[in-house]
């Protein structure tokens, strides 16, 4: 218990002093996760919306692939991305393995299916309600899609945050493709795993605290925003 107490004290002082090592790790984590969620949203949202609205060749294949990806354990995703990016792999020439870019790619693969699936649900529900009205007003598929995305914006934000949650909490995939290299690819989750195994509880706890504060902060803000918006627009 005293161990834990002193570790907690040291952790808090690291956080309050804004320890440079700790700050570097936190910043890189945010860069990787935010970058990955941004790209995953760019791909996943139109994909989910298209699957919800349109019947096109290859649609079933996309649905099956998205579902399969969603069920994959992160380490397996990490392994696949590792194989693709490794020197002998198809994208080996890019030399991306063990860089933050590789970690972003792995997280995009993890997060995109979640965002696509949630988007599909939101857009399908809205379409049921809006279809006749939008068709009556003469909205073509493109205009209908933009209207649905806009009207679903608050619910879709939750989808993005769910993606961010998965990205920032994830260890296995980024560990494999990033390698947890100090000052290069070390992020919060991999650092925590390493420091705990080394017995340095202070840094691990400090990072843990920041991770918790970040995720509750973001989710809390999102919740408040969504509630306010829903009250404003009555659902």
């Amino acid at each position, binding site marked *: 218990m005293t161990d834990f107490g002193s570790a907690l004290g040291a952790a808090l002082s690291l956080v309050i002093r804004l320890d440079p090592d700790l700050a570097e790790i936190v910043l890189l984590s945010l860069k990787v996760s935010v970058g990955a969620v941004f790209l995953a949203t760019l791909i996943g949202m139109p994909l989910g919306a298209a699957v919800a609205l349109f019947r096109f060749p290859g649609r079933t294949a996309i649905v099956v692939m998205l579902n399969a990806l969603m069920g994959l354990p992160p380490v397996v995703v990490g392994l696949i991305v590792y194989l693709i990016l490794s020197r002998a792999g198809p994208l080996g020439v890019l030399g991306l393995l063990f860089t933050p870019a590789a970690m972003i790619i792995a997280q995009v693969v993890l997060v995109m299916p979640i965002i696509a699936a949630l988007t599909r649900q939101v857009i399908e529900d809205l379409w049921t309600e809006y279809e006749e009205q939008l068709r*009556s*007003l*003469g909205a073509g598929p493109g205009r209908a899609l933009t209207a649905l995305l806009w*009207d679903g914006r608050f619910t879709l934000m939750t989808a993005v945050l769910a993606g961010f949650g998965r990205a920032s909490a994830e260890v296995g995939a980024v560990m494999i493709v990033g390698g947890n290299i100090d000052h290069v690819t070390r992020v919060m989750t991999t650092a925590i795993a390493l420091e705990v195994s080394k017995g340095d509880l202070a840094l691990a706890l400090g990072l843990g605290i920041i991770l918790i504060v970040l995720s509750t902060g973001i989710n809390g803000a999102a919740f408040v925003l969504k509630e306010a918006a829903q009250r404003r627009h*009555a*659902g």
Partner: protein
Amino acid sequence: MTAPSTLPVSTSILPLEFYRVSFEAGGKRLIKDLSCIFAAGPSTIILGPNGAGKSLLLRLCHGLLKPSAGQIIWHGAKGRDPSAHQAMVFQRPVMLRRSVAANVDYALALRGVPRRRRRDMVAESLTETGLARLAHHPARVLSFGEQQRLALARAWALMPQVLFLDEPTANLDPAATHTVERVITAIHAAGTQVIMTTHDLGQARRLADEILFLHRGRLLEKGPADAFFAGPRNDLARAFLRGELLWRRPRDDDSDQETRNG
């Protein structure tokens, strides 16, 4: 409410012809072998008990549903897309999650009305429907009746040649009903063909030039409103006007209607 059409006849997409139209869903025939012509001019009201197929008929007219058999023809379309000249106010209004004014603006934008002209048109249609002071409220927090008026404002701003209205005053208080009837009369007077349904017989008397009586998916009577209210030829229509519960009649009633009244 007879109004001369201000549109030259040649530009109208009317007349609309239903030729032996049937509509099936869920293994049931819901519209049965319906033939009729909606000509430009008289404002038309479709009457009939709940479940008669009034809303389905309007959806078929508007092109939201495709008939399972028969043909629906816009004789005046002449190569134009008839749907671009129609608007519909649904039985349950659907509002986008934006302001009252933005809902009307969106509809105009979809029809390609330039932005600088939209603002005045939005303001005018909201003023006419008594919604001007709510212009910047989110549309979905409006009361049901206000939403119905907004749906009417939105349809009206489009200045369609044909306007379909599905029970536009079903949830309105007397004053709002009066407003909506005034707006419908104005729309009709401006040359828009009005085809609507209602359960308010007083309203039908006030607004209709022509009545269609529908029962269990069949068109049982169609004719001038005066004659219909003076005494329908069809005995089911007579019973309907007297306020009898038509759905209590035995099922075999409707199988031979047309022979009995045709």
